[in-house]
């Protein structure tokens, strides 16, 4: 595990030690305040989190604790009240394609086909590629998510699960440095959710894009993550606990479920959430 190898070296934040050149995403003393007529409402305070390159982190916490607020701040869609967010050491300035987002609802443009939806981002990120090259990139990722036959289907003609597959393809196709996933499977039935988790992890194993994913599902959190980050309940939410998951990759659902540590991890998370 990367974390173990580097634990002995320098830098020291919030009890976790990393050398800075391994850090992809750095949240320092992050604070979010919403002004209300009754005074300021502090959603997040003193939030510190470092996420390494090629790491998959899942974030778990009670509803309304500020997980989504944090994620949209990383995406640049929500302004930062205090503190800083840096990608590879560079503080972020608003949203940008270096941080791809998979939203909770698929958020596809319903008047476009699956391919056009993916191309929307690809055209923007690879403006110098030829038209057919860009099309190939979009088609490649759509194939990866299992939508070979649906390139030219309108978004409205696809099921919710298929739409979210397009969402995954769209996010990976722009080759972001960080992938932000806001409960992407929350609206799906459990069967489709399992399928999409497999697809996500399969692509991720290939691309190794640093990923931060919010979830409510303890099993999903363990199955996908290198570390599970637990957030305390708001207001003034911060990181409560971090649980490293030491399963080898590539993982299969079966191997994870049969692993002797699985129930230990599960208990840890549930104890935290019920606390």
């Amino acid at each position, binding site marked *: 595990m990367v974390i173990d190898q580097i634990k002995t070296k320098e830098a020291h934040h919030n009890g976790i030690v990393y050398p800075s050149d391994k850090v992809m995403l750095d949240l320092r003393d992050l604070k979010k305040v919403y002004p209300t007529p009754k005074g300021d409402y502090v959603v997040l305070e003193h939030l510190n989190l470092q996420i390494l390159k090629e790491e998959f982190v899942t974030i778990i916490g009670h509803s309304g604790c500020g997980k989504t607020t944090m994620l949209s701040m990383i995406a640049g*869609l929500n302004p930062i009240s205090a503190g800083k967010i840096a990608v590879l050491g560079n503080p972020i300035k608003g949203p940008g*394609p270096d941080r791809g*987002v998979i*939203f909770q609802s698929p958020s596809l443009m319903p*008047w476009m086909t699956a391919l056009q939806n993916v191309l*929307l981002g690809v055209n923007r990120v690879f403006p110098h590629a030829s038209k057919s090259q860009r099309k190939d990139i979009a088609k490649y990722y759509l194939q990866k998510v299992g939508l070979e036959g649906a390139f030219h289907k309108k978004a*409205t003609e696809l099921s919710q699960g298929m739409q979210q597959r397009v969402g995954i393809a769209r996010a990976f196709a722009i080759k972001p440095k960080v992938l932000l996933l806001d409960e992407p499977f929350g609206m799906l039935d459990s069967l489709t959710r399992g399928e999409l988790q497999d697809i996500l992890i399969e692509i991720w194993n290939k691309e190794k894009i640093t990923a931060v994913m919010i979830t409510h599902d303890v099993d999903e959190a363990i199955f996908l993550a290198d570390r599970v980050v637990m957030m305390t309940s708001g207001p003034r939410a911060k990181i409560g606990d971090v649980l490293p998951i030491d399963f080898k990759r590539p993982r299969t659902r079966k191997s994870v479920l049969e692993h002797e540590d699985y129930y230990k991890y599960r208990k840890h998370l549930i104890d935290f959430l019920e606390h």
Partner: protein
Amino acid sequence: MKQSVTVSKTADLKVSSALKILVSRLNIKAPKFNPNTIFKKVVVPILSILLFIGLWHVGARSLYNIEADFKIEKALADQGQAAADSMAACIASGDISCQPNTLPSPAQVWDSFNTLIADHQVISADKLAFKDKTAALNEKRIAEGKDPITYTGRPSFVDQIFTSLKTVFAGFLLAFMIAVPIGIVIGLSQTLRNSFNWLIQVFKPVSPVVWLLLVFMIVKTMTKDSNQDSAFIISFISVGLCAMWATLVNTAMGVSSVDKDYINVAKVLKLKPLQKVFKVILPSSLPLIFTGLRITLSVAWMVLIAIELLAQSPGLGSFVWEEFQNGANDSNSKIIVAMFVIGIIGFLLDRIMLTIQNMVSFNKNAAT
């Protein structure tokens, strides 16, 4: 479908497939012979139409009788028994000169409709003859640099319909060209929306008549030098100004209320402003823009009649007004014919707009 097509086979195929597409676009379903649906979709509407005509007939009849009795009584009071008897005989004989003037019966309206069509045929034949007669002369006049002689006879009812359609489309186009761009611009900016809001709220409820007067004031001065007829210009501008508000408000609302998810996607992808407008904002607000345009077209058609009537511009409105002033024996039934024609054309225009709306809309369940 193929009956009308008698050309070669390939053309036949082309036309029939085009028709098929058109038919499918218009949502006309091939009738399924299910007795229940036939009853609901065909028998019930026909029955209701018959009932309507029946009630109308009965109502018109009783109004006729009231009017006739009144006429006879009046003759009795003014001129005595003999005059009353001759009045009663005159009414019973169906003589045009003494018919009571009241709500016409369905049969009278149907007769007037046929009269108007026959009149149209006479006038068109007359026009054609005029054109033939003056063709040679006009060529000579054009060669000499003079204006050609044009037909200046009375327009027929059908001509009036087309004049009205022309005016309404000109007005609609004007409304479209003003309201959509302005709507997009003010939809994009909260500040502009706030600063335009008072103007929209104040001018939206202004009556067509007042718009007409305003346009009249301006156009009259602007066209002082030219000797062309300004009635058409005045009426189509007034129609456009009255009708554009629905489109303006809907466009601004559509543009400003684009789903936040789409905006977030555009932000994450860092689309350039113009790309954002054309790839995300406009397509997503198209359904609302078209709802606005549909309202605009029906408002335009509705106010057109009143405006033509006041602006002395030729068309259905002035037809109705002239018939009312005319007071001829069949004027009332001609007015009712015009009423039905206006209603049916309004309905058809709305259907056309709905079809276009459904074609451009990604949301397939637009209101009907």
